[in-house]
């Protein structure tokens, strides 16, 4: 983010004849904002994104995937402030101190905003991530993503929610898009849209922060006094997404707006072409648990089998 010159006033306050000092500068939107107007700018941007992609309405029951990090808590806060019915869902992954700390933060936030937080323990459901990691042949993050999606989907249905919202931000989406483009991974690119429609057993999934940068999300958390887990999950060390994010931020510094354009032009120009060529395969039901899957046995049930054998 480019520098804010000394004495710059908030663009919105100035238009209203007020004199509040700007504390944040958003170069790609050419906006200098005070604390209050940054918070309202953020929430308006989230609401605009929700409407642009027709994600959900005030009638929907939304389950927010809460990790205890800045993005999920900022998202939950913004949705509740905007008047949506949004509750939290936390999966205790059983990653030692990291899980204990993040769970505590998610819980105190849920109390603060007075909305329920549903908690599921992976240890009780399957096995904690460190154990899954020992039997999995994939990186821990990918196994973790799979189990999170699985339990989120299952519990959303059980608890009567029709929307799953995740805190993926612009930088997350751009880093994934960049990686998938580097590898020309068309199958992943085809699914990179901020809305995944509901279909046979899958609850509709949305990413309302897809046009919010990571820094904007951290600032929103800061201005709202949201306490979140600041240190990284010990299993995410060396993730290529972090490398991509640092690389892309250097481009962004020189050319503000690059990330947003890369993402929005993909959605506008490339995604429709990819989507057109999609051979739509219908999900089946897992023969063990009944959850939707494209194989006979879903990946979580496969994991369970492998865990049993390992004992």
């Amino acid at each position, binding site marked *: *983010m480019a520098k804010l010159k000394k004495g710059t006033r908030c663009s919105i306050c100035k238009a209203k004849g007020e004199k509040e000092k700007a504390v944040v500068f958003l170069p790609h939107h050419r906006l200098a904002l005070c604390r209050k107007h940054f918070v309202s700018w953020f929430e308006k941007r989230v609401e605009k994104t929700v409407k642009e992609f027709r994600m959900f309405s005030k009638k929907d029951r939304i389950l927010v995937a809460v990790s205890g990090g800045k993005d999920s808590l900022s998202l939950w806060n913004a949705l509740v402030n905007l008047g949506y019915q949004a509750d939290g869902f936390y999966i205790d992954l059983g990653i030692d101190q990291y899980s204990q700390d993040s769970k505590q933060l998610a819980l105190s936030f849920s109390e603060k905003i007075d909305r329920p937080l549903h908690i599921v323990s992976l240890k009780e459901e399957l096995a904690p991530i460190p154990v899954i990691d020992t039997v999995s042949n994939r990186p821990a993050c990918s196994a973790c*993503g799979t189990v999170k999606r699985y339990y989120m989907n299952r519990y959303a249905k059980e608890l009567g929610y029709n929307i799953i919202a995740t805190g993926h931000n612009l930088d997350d989406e751009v880093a994934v898009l960049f990686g998938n483009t580097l590898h020309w991974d068309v199958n992943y690119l085809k699914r990179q849209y901020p809305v995944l429609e509901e279909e046979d057993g899958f609850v509709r999934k949305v990413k309302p922060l897809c046009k919010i940068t990571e*820094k904007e999300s951290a*600032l929103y958390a800061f201005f709202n006094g949201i306490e979140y887990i*600041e240190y990284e999950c010990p299993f995410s060390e060396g993730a290529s997404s*972090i490398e991509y994010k*640092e690389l892309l*931020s250097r481009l962004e*510094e020189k050319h503000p707006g690059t990330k947003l354009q890369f993402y929005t032009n993909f959605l506008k120009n490339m995604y429709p072409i990819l989507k057109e060529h999609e051979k739509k395969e219908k999900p089946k039901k897992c023969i063990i648990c009944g959850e939707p899957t494209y194989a006979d046995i879903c990946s979580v049930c496969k994991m369970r089998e492998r865990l049993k054998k390992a004992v």
Partner: protein
Amino acid sequence: MEIKIKYRGKEQTLTFEKEKITAGDILKAMGLSPEYAFVVKNGEIAQEDETVSPQDEIKVVNAISGG
């Protein structure tokens, strides 16, 4: 000059050769870009050219996360 900072839940001390230190210097010393990181001085956002002293309570926030 020595500046104590809080970063990702831990305390750290940064040592500088010069005597006038700004929030931007802190980010630079830590190898962080203002594109994704910011400095909180005594509970308020500090702009890059804002000076900091050893008496200030400094927190550095890095917004980049993995996953």
